[in-house]
């Protein structure tokens, strides 16, 4: 689908499992918000469809009871009190006032329920937005950058809250452009770049996959390289004659070097952070480094929920059918 004439989300399919907190990652402009807006029917996909519980979100009566969403904490009228804001939205989905009071309490805004939103800090607005998502006690939660503006205490509170909700069997999807932060909260991550799926994996698998390499300087690098390769390691030459070794830890490298009679000048394990992993994953697709891209395939993003709180997001595009439909090539700087 397109956003402002630009291809924003293209042939994107992923599944969000119930009982887990799923992080939805991508650099700025990767299409996270667009995907979420498409699910909510705010941005109709140019092709394909977005389904929630097997039907378009817009066709669900009282949809807040099925899925709670936070898109933009700023999407409020500052002239209303927090209570009035939530009460108006609650009423539109047939949700009672008792629930409004309970949610205000849950998000920690009970004390300022009667105050105008215009006086709220960004953090308070995030809490209000999260409260909005929680109003319908939904099985699925979809939060866009919910951690923005929260203070450390707030971030911790939200992590605990999301963890609790997931443990209750709900499906929780939160987007972020910060991997480290997300890794602390999420069990699973979906990474997109340039509107395309890059990774759909557990946080553990990701950490393993990108666990890093070992820097080795040796008296006979070529010989050591062949020894290490013979033991299943991946070895690449660094520019200054050092070796980058993967799939073999430092202890193993040291033992092999000793047995081969090669002196080591340096043996440094280099741990890759998730942030680096994220960078590595997305570097080819990061918008502002890309000089050209192919447009033409429109994607639909759908969510089909299995009974219980599970969400599945999948592309509704007929594969290839639209490829090159426009044939547009756009240079973006």
């Amino acid at each position, binding site marked *: 689908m397109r956003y402002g004439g630009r291809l924003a989300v293209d042939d994107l399919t992923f599944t969000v499992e119930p009982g887990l907190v799923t992080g939805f990652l991508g650099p700025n402009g990767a299409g996270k918000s667009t995907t979420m807006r498409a699910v*909510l*029917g*705010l941005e*109709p996909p140019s092709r394909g469809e977005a389904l929630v519980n097997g039907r378009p*979100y*817009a*066709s*669900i009566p*009282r*949809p*807040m009871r099925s899925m709670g*969403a936070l*898109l*933009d904490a*700023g*999407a*409020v*009228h*500052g*002239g*209303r*009190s927090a209570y*009035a*804001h939530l*009460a*108006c*939205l609650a*009423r*539109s*989905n*047939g949700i009672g006032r008792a629930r409004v009071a309970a949610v205000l309490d849950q998000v920690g805004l009970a004390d300022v329920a009667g105050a105008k939103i215009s006086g709220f800090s960004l953090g308070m607005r995030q809490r209000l937005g999260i409260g*909005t998502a929680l109003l319908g006690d939904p099985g699925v939660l979809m939060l866009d950058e919910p951690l923005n503006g929260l203070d450390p205490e707030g971030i911790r509170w939200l992590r605990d809250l999301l963890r609790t909700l997931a443990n209750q069997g709900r499906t929780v999807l939160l987007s972020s452009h910060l991997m480290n932060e997300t890794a602390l909260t999420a069990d699973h991550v979906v990474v997109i770049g340039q509107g395309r799926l890059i990774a759909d994996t557990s946080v553990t698998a990701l950490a393993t996959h990108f666990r890093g390499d070992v820097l080795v300087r040796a008296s006979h690098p070529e010989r050591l390289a062949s020894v290490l390769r013979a033991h299943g390691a991946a070895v690449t030459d660094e520019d200054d004659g050092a070796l980058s070794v993967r799939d073999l830890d430092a202890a193993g490298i040291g033992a092999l070097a000793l047995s081969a009679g090669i002196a080591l000048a340096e043996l440094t394990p280099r741990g890759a952070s998730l942030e680096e992993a994220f960078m590595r994953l997305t570097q080819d697709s990061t918008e502002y480094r890309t000089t050209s891209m192919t447009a033409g395939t429109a994607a639909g993003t759908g969510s089909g929920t299995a009974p219980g709180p599970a969400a599945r997001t999948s592309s509704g595009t007929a594969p290839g059918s639209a490829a090159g439909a426009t044939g547009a090539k756009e240079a973006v700087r």
Partner: protein
Amino acid sequence: MIDVIVSEWMKLRSLRSNLYLLACSVAAVLACAGIAFMIGRGFDHQTAAEQPAFPGNGDGLGNGIAVAYFVFALLGALAITSEYGTTMIWTSLVAVPRRQLLLLAKVPGLAAVALVAGQVLAFAMHAVSMAVLGDRAGQLLRDGVTLGTPLSEPGVLASVIAAGLSMAAVALIGLGVGAAVRSTPGALVVLTVIIVVLPVVAKTLPMPLRAQAGSFMIENLPLQIAGTGGGTLPPVAAAGLLVAYVIAALTAGAARIATTGRRIKAVAIGVAATLLVSAVPAVAAGPPDSGRSTLAWADCADEELVKEMRCASIDVPVNWARPSGRKIGLTVALLPATGAQRRTGTVFAIPGGPGGSGVEDLSANAGSFAELRDHFDVVSVEPRNTVDKGVLSFDCLFSGPWITWPDNPREWAELGRRNRAAAQRCRAADPEFFDHMDSASVARDMEAIRVALGEEQLSFIANSYGGRPGIDYSRLFPGRVRAMVFDGAMDPFMDRAVGRRPHEEAFTRFAAWCAANTTCALHGQDVGAVWRALVARADRTPVPVRGEPAKAAYSGLDIKQAAAPSVIEPGPAPEFPRWTQLAEAIKRAADGDASGFADYVRQSTKSPKVPSATGMNMTHCLDGIVFDDYEEYRAKRREGERLLPNLAGIELWHPLGCVGWPTPVTNPPAPLPAGKLPPYLGVGSWTDFGRSADIVRRVPGSAAVQYLSTGHGLYNAGNSCIIAHVNRYLISLRLPAPGTVCRPPAT
């Protein structure tokens, strides 16, 4: 859906800014008060004569309604633009993804608030306007409405309620525009154009485009819905248009807020609904009444006539008993309706005389009909008995024998011979035409004109002798009369001597004036005694006119007939020039020279004594202004001498002109079919009010207004107070309370 509606109501209510905004609508009340104050001041600065021509303030809402509309439109627009402005809309759309439902759910709450607030505001605006005008509000204006129209006036309650409803409609229009434009400043611009700019632009257009365009402006719809003015639309069409505007605006909003795929459907439904509620009532109300005329209106041949007058010719049978017989052409004149208001119909101005040209009268008095023409076409005719029609000799019809007062059957027969000879002289040119100059034929000509105009009914202003064809029309075609005004009308039902009693009262005023003013040549004398001695002596020995042969000498009856117009019409105060002249003429006549009277009579008749004009008698004598015989004459003369101590005999003048007439009475007076006629209005001055009042009292529910001064043909003369009452009656069929009078401006 109820949940969403309630939710939107909570949204509206939970913003204090909405309350402040509604409070701003007080500005509309202040505008009404301020402008009413200025109107009141301006009105006070007018002379009493100018005041009735002042523009009315109506129900008072017009001055502030644009302010009220602006507030309500903003309230409606903000209900959606504030959501876009704050991006709250995205939160709202997540909660209520059905976008058109979200928009339309705002309608009930907004409408409820606006309906209540609109009514409160409308009534407040009306009340404050009326309060500021105070007693002045009751002043009746020439356009037939009072300076301020209270709720007790018909249609005013409806117009105030409609104005309140229109404010609610404007709030919904604001919502639709807001949804279509999606920004508060943008919506403000569009709404300012709709509420302020378009009406102002419409007012700069030339007529009748101005009125046509103005009729479609929202601010002019409430009055049109109430049927009390505002433009040319019938009430049901105006109401339909107001609803259509709301639907159109909401359609635009619904189409814009919809996702792409649903837009076409929204537009299709909206356009269909808009057309349905606006076009269907307009079609059902039918086309404007004009345009069904079969008369070929063209510029008038007579270039002396006012420019906007249109003329046409209609052929009527000379003898209505033989409709297929010989035809003559009559000139019909039209002063078309201005188009400022919805056209009510046609007013027929029946000319006096007999023998006056309604075409010339209507042209000369066009200014008197200016306000009436906002609602009516005004037509008149050059009737068949017009003396300068050209079929019969004008000079012959304009002249006639001098009337003597027969004292015995021999003199009676001699008068008859003179009259007959004069009639035969004129009749010879076209005897058939001459014998069909009665007012019933004139009335049938009027009916032919009605048919040609394509009007179901006509309204009439019958002036002076025009009262007689007016009565005959009422008698012959009662169902065709919507309304009829008798202005100083000829009354065939009243005893002629009784009808001249106001002349005696005028004579008493003349005598009192002489006693009080040294400018009167008879000052210091008993005017009544001098006068009665003069006419008694003149009846025995006529007073000669210097330089004229002996037969021009003035009898007492000649003196009375020559003096009567001056007695009742003294001319403008304080000089009263005609009373001054009259006193001098009496003084000279008492000294043996009647040339003071002769000089005056000569000015209008080219004769030293008043002739019994054949052109008038040819109608009078057929209309039954006759004595059956000498005995009846003697009885009437005795009765007149009893009732009219100073002016006895003037009541006999016209019937004496018909003694010996060659054609019998063909149209004797006959009673009005009272039960078949709508209430009539009679108006008249000191001199002629009694006759108008006597006619209309024969029609149940009628009323009469007296002008407490002199005059004849008050409507034509431009008497504002009389015009105000007549227009009110003709426009809205409402009659003044019994005893209503018009007073001359204080001098």
